């Protein structure tokens, strides 16, 4: 991890987003005060199940959230100190691609089927850098080569349907890197891919981030992928970050019952244990988030306090964490942080 003394690359604080129309009374609070930071060269993994708000946070940061139905009701997003929420749309458009770029889960629908892959990458060079069509195509081929597509000079003239799933995702990565962004947001980049291809793509992303000291926000639901590349991890539940720590301490001492539950739910390759120990119940509906701790209806350790008082995300005393980096939003986090992930804690 690289230490940056100055302002972090990206600082999201207390971000709040709602969906739906308040006049009809059907409002879903999708983000309820999300804060995180990403420094240059750092990979932050945002881990969460569907509906936890991880993609909406990323869309808000990129400025591609559909409003309506979404509404940003509070908070701030600062990129190198510059406030982005409420900024001039033209300014935001310039930042996209140039300073921050995003890759998506489904590369096939993110690519335009009627243009060649090369033309779609070259477009950025032509419009942002004023290059000629020919020079831009040369640059596009260089990028395809950078993301290890064989025969890049020929493949640049092919259409997305001629690419395999893994190659399309590589082409998306090439496109996102075209203008040398400082921040890359990868929204479930390997979820649609097979394991052997997933491993290739994650390795490529990791390598590119390190070479370019690029900050990365990796959004995923896969605890394995996270463990392999993330520097820091933020776990989201019902529109909030419930735990945040560097990767090693999070896996060694998960302090939030939800994080512990997630880890106990993953079937392991080494075949340990018979029954899995899943989290009971379902995530709450975002239009009716329970009072107090949003996780309390599914938590075996919930007490009266959890039902009425919302726990804040606070720093914990974790001997393995660097500084006060391990934070969790649980009233009883101290009880869990010392225990190993397998330890079954009786409520």
């Amino acid at each position, binding site marked *: 991890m690289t230490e940056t003394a100055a302002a972090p690359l990206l600082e999201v604080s207390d971000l709040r987003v709602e969906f739906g129309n308040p006049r009809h009374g059907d409002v879903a609070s999708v983000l309820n005060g999300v804060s995180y930071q990403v420094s240059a060269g750092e990979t932050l993994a945002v881990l969460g*199940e*569907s509906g936890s708000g991880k993609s909406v946070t990323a869309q808000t940061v990129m400025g591609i959230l559909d409003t309506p139905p979404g509404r940003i009701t509070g908070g701030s997003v600062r990129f190198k100190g510059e406030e982005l929420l409420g900024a001039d749309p033209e300014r935001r458009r310039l930042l996209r691609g140039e300073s921050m770029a995003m890759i998506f889960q489904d590369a096939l629908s993110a690519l335009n089927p009627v243009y060649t892959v090369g033309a779609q990458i070259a477009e950025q060079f032509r419009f942002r850098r004023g290059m000629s069509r020919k020079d831009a195509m040369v640059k596009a081929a260089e990028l395809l080569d950078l993301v290890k597509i*064989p025969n890049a000079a020929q493949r640049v003239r092919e259409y997305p349907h001629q690419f*395999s*799933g*893994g*190659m399309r995702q590589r082409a998306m990565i090439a496109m996102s890197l075209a203008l040398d962004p400082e921040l890359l947001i990868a929204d479930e980049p390997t979820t649609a891919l*097979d*394991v*052997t*291809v*997933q*491993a*290739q793509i*994650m*390795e490529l992303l990791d390598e590119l981030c390190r070479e370019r000291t690029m900050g990365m926000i990796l959004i995923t*639901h*896969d*605890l*394995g*992928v*996270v*463990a*392999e590349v*993330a520097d820091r991890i933020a776990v989201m539940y019902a529109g909030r970050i419930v735990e945040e720590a560097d*990767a*090693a301490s*999070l*896996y*060694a001492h998960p302090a939030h019952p939800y994080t512990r*539950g*997630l*880890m*106990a*739910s*993953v*079937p*392991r*390759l*080494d*075949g*340990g244990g018979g*029954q*899995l*120990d*899943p*989290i*009971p119940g*379902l*995530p709450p509906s975002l239009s009716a988030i329970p009072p107090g701790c949003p996780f309390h209806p599914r938590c075996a350790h919930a007490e009266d306090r959890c039902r009425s008082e919302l726990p804040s995300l606070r720093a914990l005393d974790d001997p393995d964490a660097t500084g006060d980096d391990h934070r969790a939003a649980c009233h009883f986090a101290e009880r869990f942080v010392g225990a*190993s*992930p*397998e330890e079954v804690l009786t409520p």
Partner: protein
Amino acid sequence: MSQPILQVKDLVKHFPITRGVVFQKTVGQVHAVDGVSFDLHPGETLGVVGESGCGKSTLAQVLMRLEPPTSGTVTFDGEDLFAKSGAALKAWRRDMQVVLQDPYTSLNPRKTVGDIVGEPFEIHPEVAPKGERRRKVQELLDVVGLNPEHIRRYPHQFSGGQRQRIGIARALALRPRVIVCDEPVSALDVSIQAQVMNLLGELQTEFGLSYIFIAHDLGVVRHLSDRVAVMYLGKIVETGTSEEIYERATHPYTQALLSSVPVPDPAARGKRETIRLTGDVPSPAAPPSGCRFRTRCPKATDLCAEQEPALAAGPASDHPSACHYAEVYRTLPVPSR
């Protein structure tokens, strides 16, 4: 050992590639399943793993008699499955049911849960007389962990995990002996996935079911399977007990697959040896000569291009492995936490 309930022998399914609108002519064959053999014993779970396009779902469709095979035989309880017709076919359908991957598209949105789970009884009225059906359906909902009161609700009122439970209840309705599960948990979130996997395990013990469990997630397959078959481009490349496959894999593809699975432990980062395959799976319309894995295999030699390795145990492999150079790589680089 008991008599196998299902015996699959040299099962082949090719799909023709046609060209032309009026005068269609076949210009090639997609070799989706190309000579697959295995046995399934009562009460056993056979896991089938492989990447997309390896033919595992086509295998499920042929086994369910949703697609006719190109060649090969399948016997169920010693009787030829593809020879069945009429009443015998209908009776057999009670014994073998399927759970599909996508709980969103596999349930009819216009029918209530009661109608969906009760529909098998309409087709096989001998299982439950009309008056008893409602009670039967409620029992089934209870068995899979749903509220029996919700019998009048529609699929959209349920979450993904609950819908998958509805799919399982429907499959259980006729008390089948074999259930083919085609990626039953891959569309679900981790915490919900674990709930459904536990349910499948419990139902197996309760009803003495046999499962053919098709999935691409190696962890999920290990968790539920007694035996595992690894498929690549329409063929089984290695098969054995889950211990043999996960601890002593001898086929380079299985080894690469296992080493590609990310391990949820940051302490293991950079410490375990990984085999990274290059390139993509070749097209099943034009599979490579000899061993199908040779184009991506780190061990491939000229022999692999000329001669197809047989799926058999060898001196260095205690279980069937279709590789000329089968050997145990080393103990799996899975850390114990």
